[in-house]
């Protein structure tokens, strides 16, 4: 606890230093509209650097704590210090543009130093060709994030799962070839666009997507019809079972938006472990859907509310069996030092019980207040994700400040609340506090500024 307190103090000192630095930097600035600021260059290099210390308060009675820490004692709290460098660069010539976004993650935790695998560092890397404003092609690693939901996207068939705890984080893409054809009209149908995607899954090429040695085809038809966005989405080809979906989004008034998604997944496979450790697989047709709204009050409070039905998820009973099996494995380990059951439980956790939103019914609510007390660029928010099947939930208050140009400071706490054999109650930690400090940069502008300063000094 004491260790946690000191880290907390350190987090605040770091935040304070950034704010002080920002204030000094700004006090010296003056504004002008220099035409060089709008000059277009064919290349761009930029991105952000991030520092993110986190403290976790562990729950030693939780099943997932037992699964992860059965061989070690890390005390009541663990710390994690992560650094991230997101670099992006592009080069444009004529109708062609080359774009790369790389993500370098470095983490120091109770397990020592760690970094992301080199093959996962490139989040996006593609060549795009745009013969006209109506037609474009993209070849290479790309993120195709489909769906209208904020925290959940059941129709995002060709992207990696979003983290509902931080839905705005960039996601790693898959290697694919895609095209966009757009047509505008006058009348109730204002826009139509079609996005066909060819999606190969072979050894060392998208092999974490599904069954290998398959060429998959996905597609999206978009309509702006009667001021409503509508997408029809599909995926076929064999790496995953066939799936189809529809989504919509519409503004009801200038401060009220509604959206929804529906996905039908053919022959979904579910791997379930019972209390005794027997693993069974079942196949069924799953239906997932989402309904949501975004509402802005006259006093600038934004509500984002979503109900998510995960048709591929586990029932409360199936989840209880999984937790019971872990507890049984832990008891066996304590009694005889035998971790075979825990290893078996670990094998069904990854990408299955351990994936985000593993159960059936969820509510998501985020309430954010823009600039309270006239503090410009300050946005406090509170977010909750509730599992309706077992009544467990997590609640995360946060403070975001973006007042210093290119700096973003976010302090976020999370409490996980739930009883025995519930999703959030059995997570390895009870609380989490993190500070995220980001600095965005434009390397080309920085270089130009430096060049200008040198030239000025030489004069």
């Amino acid at each position, binding site marked *: 606890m004491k260790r946690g307190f000191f880290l907390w103090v350190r987090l605040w000192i770091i935040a304070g230093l950034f704010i002080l630095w920002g204030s000094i930097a700004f006090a010296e600035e003056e504004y002008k509209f220099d035409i060089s600021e709008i000059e277009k260059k064919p290349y761009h290099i930029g991105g952000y650097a991030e520092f993110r210390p986190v403290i976790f308060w562990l729950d030693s009675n939780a099943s997932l704590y037992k699964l992860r820490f059965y061989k070690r004692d890390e005390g009541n709290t663990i710390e994690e210090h992560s650094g991230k460098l997101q670099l992006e660069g592009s080069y444009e010539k004529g109708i062609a543009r080359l774009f790369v976004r790389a993500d370098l993650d470095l983490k120091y935790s109770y397990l020592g130093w760690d970094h992301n695998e080199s093959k996962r560092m490139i989040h996006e890397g593609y060549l795009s060709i745009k013969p006209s404003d109506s037609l474009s092609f993209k070849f290479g690693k790309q993120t195709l*994030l489909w769906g209208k939901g904020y925290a959940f996207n059941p129709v995002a068939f060709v992207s990696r799962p979003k983290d509902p705890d931080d839905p705005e984080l960039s996601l790693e893409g898959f290697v694919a070839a895609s095209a966009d054809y757009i047509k505008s009209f006058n009348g109730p149908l204002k826009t139509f666009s079609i996005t066909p995607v060819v999606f190969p899954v072979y050894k060392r090429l998208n092999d974490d997507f599904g069954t290998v040695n398959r060429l998959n085809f996905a597609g999206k038809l978009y309509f702006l019809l009667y001021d409503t966005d509508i997408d029809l989405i599909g995926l076929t080809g064999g790496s995953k079972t066939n799936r189809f979906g529809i989504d919509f989004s519409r503004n009801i008034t*200038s401060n009220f*938006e509604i959206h929804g998604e529906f996905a039908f997944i053919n022959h979904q496979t579910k791997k379930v472990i019972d209390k005794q450790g027997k693993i069974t697989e079942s196949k069924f047709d799953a239906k997932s859907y989402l309904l949501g709204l975004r509402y802005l009050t006259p006093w600038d409070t934004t509500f984002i509310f979503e109900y998510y039905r995960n048709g591929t998820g586990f029932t409360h009973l199936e989840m209880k069996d999984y937790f019971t099996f872990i507890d049984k494995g832990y008891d066996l380990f304590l009694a005889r030092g035998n971790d075979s059951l825990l290893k078996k439980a670990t094998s069904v956790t990854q990408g299955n019980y351990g994936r985000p939103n593993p159960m059936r019914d969820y509510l998501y609510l985020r309430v954010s207040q823009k600039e309270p007390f006239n503090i*410009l*660029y300050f946005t406090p928010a509170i977010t909750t994700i509730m599992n309706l099947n077992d009544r467990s939930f997590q609640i995360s208050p946060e403070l975001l400040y973006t007042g210093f140009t290119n700096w973003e400071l976010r302090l976020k706490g999370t409490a996980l609340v739930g009883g025995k054999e519930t999703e959030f109650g059995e997570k390895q930690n009870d609380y989490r506090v993190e500070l995220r400090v980001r600095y*965005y940069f434009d390397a080309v502008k920085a270089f130009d500024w430096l060049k200008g300063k040198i030239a000025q000094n030489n004069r």
Partner: protein
Amino acid sequence: MKKILICLVALLVAVPVHAIEGAQLLKQIDRNLNPESYEMYRKLINVEPDGRKKEYTLFSVKKGVDKVAALFLTPASEKGRSTLRLGDNMWLYIPNVGKPVRITSLQSVVGGVFNNADILQLDYAAEYDVEKVEEAGKEYLLHLKAKTKTVAYDKIKLWADKDKKLPTKIECRTEAGMLIKTLYFKEVKDFGGGIVRPSVIETDSPLYKGYKSIFIFANIKQRDFKDEVFTLTFMPNIESLR
């Protein structure tokens, strides 16, 4: 009898403000501000009471009465963000998030006094009906009323220079008449191509006491675009129009 006739003639002379087609005048003000289809660059500066400033640079394109898009060029934290408006529909694209999301016109993408509707301003005549035109010295005072509930400000009072037919001041109000913000149009400048208009708009708001926001305009040019540019699918490509 003679006096009555003189009074009637005087009354007829006094009405011409009403006789001036209010809608026509508003359209003329719109056209004097911008060509119907254009590209332009803007710098937005938010100034805090202690003098601290935060600046944003935007590239904007517009076509017809209801299509407008804006792309953030600086600062680095906002670079690549784009906003699109197609009539009452409004979307925001954030490169990291990777997909456009619908937003509401009253939200603010940048914080401060300006909201999305200010950044993606359509022609006033497209969104407002002229209720009344008054003469106020060397200026016209136009009382505007929103055509639909989806417009950001229900009522607008617009002061326009009689000779130049350009706005000098605009008050944005709620349905109940509460003042939300005031825009001051300053420094009329020749941008070339026959475009002569204020190059600076200053804004303050009783809701943000002591704060102000400033728009500085540059490189306004008439330019035609295909309708397909103003679509949700095109949003990640707006940079290619520069």
